């Protein structure tokens, strides 16, 4: 079986629970953010190379579906940062780690992510609705 198939089917059967969930979310949020970042670097570079094209890039960013996606990109960036900090702290200061802290640390990570994300999602969601349905300029 190919390694990729193993990971997909294995993730369903493997009972890694919280740690496995944190790992998968870290990879998905990282890959999603990277995809957005590569696109974002290139479209922003048009301000120097092809200034007239920057309008087109902005039109894409202002599309309702893109704005909706952006709210989830923010969730990915927040989760990746909080979980990354958890990883870095446990790696750089192993003495902080206890077996019984492993699972609670994942729940803390998820909770902190949601708490940070909700106000951002509210403001961005309001902007999305305002510009899509209420004719905001």
């Amino acid at each position, binding site marked *: 079986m*190919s*390694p*990729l198939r193993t*990971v997909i089917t294995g993730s369903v059967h493997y009972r890694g629970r919280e740690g496995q969930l944190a790992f998968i979310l870290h*990879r998905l949020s*990282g*890959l999603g*953010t*990277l995809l957005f*970042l*590569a696109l974002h*670097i*290139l479209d*922003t*570079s*048009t*301000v*120097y*190379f*092809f*200034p*007239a094209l*920057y*309008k087109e890039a*902005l039109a894409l*960013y*202002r599309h309702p579906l893109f*704005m909706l996606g*952006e709210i989830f990109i*923010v969730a990915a*960036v*927040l989760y990746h*940062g909080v979980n*990354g*900090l958890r*990883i*870095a702290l*446990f*790696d*750089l200061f*192993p*003495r902080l*780690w*206890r*077996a*019984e802290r492993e699972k609670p640390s994942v729940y803390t990570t998820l909770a902190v992510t949601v708490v940070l994300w909700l106000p*951002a999602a509210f*403001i*961005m969601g309001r*902007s999305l609705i305002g*510009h899509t349905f209420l004719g*905001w*300029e």
Partner: protein
Amino acid sequence: MTTLDRTSRVVSPPPRSIDGRIWLLMRYSGIALIPLAWIHVLIQDVLVGVHRIDLDYVALRWATLGWRVYDMALLAFAFAHGMNGLRQVLEDYITRERPRRLVRWGLFAAWLVITGIGAAAIVGGVGRGAGEVDGS
């Protein structure tokens, strides 16, 4: 074999190889990216919003040297961190040596080119003939 004390954890210091240094760099750049990326997202996406961003806005922002330095640091840290992360993910699934080397050099080349394009834009600023932009 000694029994592992289940309440403690041992992390051996990273080896002095390239991979060991990259491992450490992923942690340091990750920590640096928390303020760098979050403040960027907070200002541009949440507080300002994409509907108030245009060439004039970019020109105004880049009129301050500090923001150019900030954007340069964000570009350098974020994209390198991300591309190395992608390398790690791919290397988990590509086990043969030749395709692996191909992926490494391919990602390195893509990283270099895209970082170069982004850096050129940050140094160059908003291009001439951009309309009402207050250029030199």
